[in-house]
């Protein structure tokens, strides 16, 4: 009796954990793609205030400090271009990467949702991506 109750408990926990985990992972990937889409749309429309709204706090601070201008003006001065459609999205824990047709974004999860940590990123062999904007 004890053994069967234990088996049922373990089975339920595994099922809930597995299904819950998959559902959460899919949801998180969708949320990352949504933030990337908001960022790209705002960039394409030149709505730099909306671009700034989805930047991670440290990235926004770094951008303003290095340019000496408010975020929307600083974004306009950078050589950021719309990256095109999403090719793939990787999410591990609270960190994510979205590879676009001609750009790569790195994102991180905050209380207010997913935010862009780095954009305008080009891959380099064996070392971190080189990014137009990124946090300190």
């Amino acid at each position: 009796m004890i053994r069967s109750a234990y088996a049922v408990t373990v089975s339920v926990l595994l099922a809930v954990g597995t299904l819950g985990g998959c559902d959460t992972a899919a949801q998180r990937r969708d949320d990352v793609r949504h933030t990337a889409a908001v960022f790209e749309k705002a960039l394409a429309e030149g709505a730099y205030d909306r671009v700034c709204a989805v930047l991670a706090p440290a990235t926004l601070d770094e951008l303003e400090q290095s340019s000496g201008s408010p975020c929307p003006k600083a974004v306009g001065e950078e050589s950021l271009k719309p990256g095109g459609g999403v090719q793939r999205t990787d999410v591990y824990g609270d960190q994510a990467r979205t590879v676009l047709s001609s750009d790569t974004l790195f994102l991180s999860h905050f209380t207010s949702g997913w935010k862009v940590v780095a954009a305008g990123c080009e891959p380099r062999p064996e070392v971190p991506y080189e990014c137009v904007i990124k946090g300190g």
Partner: protein
Amino acid sequence: MTARLTARPPAPRARGFLRDNALGLFFLVTFVLAIAGQAIAGHADFNNQLAADQLQQISLGEYLTTSDFAVDVTENWQSEYLQFFLYVGATIWLLQRGSPESKELHKAGTESDREQLVGAHANADSPKWVRAGGWRRAVYSHSLLLVMGTIFLLSWLVQSISGTAAYDEQRLRQLQAPLSWAGYLGAADFWNRTLQNWQSELLAVASMAVLSIYLRQRGSPESKPVGAAHGSTGVEG
């Protein structure tokens, strides 16, 4: 005198259970305390890393579901079960003169049915699968090794999967591309985590097998009797 005798309550069943299972319970409770401590320390360490990268910190409850916690737990589990798997398996054939961890020097191998109380030599109180014979007896004869080996392999598998996720989360924080599971199996991080645990377990086993030849702990079944000769093998206190 009579009053003292009648005042003494009969030994409660709970106390008997505790005494009969004290060894297992002691290690179970200390395991829970240790893993709770690991969770608290690991959570603080993880948040320190996030703070250094100016990223959102997480709660203890969230940390317990992270791959970072999972890989730290399972990398130790796999090595512990590997240790006992190897110890149970190696001591069938390999001997150590003078060690209480070894069988007597003429007993190398799986031993006779008579010595192992199987087949015609099984007793009425032998486990059911031993008395059943056939495949059940064959499986039961190796059940300890099979279970230890299975838990080792499963723990190592979970270490590799959770390690991939933890390593990739760290790589994304550093603006690097993530690795696949197969890629992580060839990564230095996986083998560094694995081998640093294996080496310590193997050293501990070698130390126990050899030091117990010359050193004693009175009252411990892991030691020879205090007065036993250094050369006596397979004798437990």
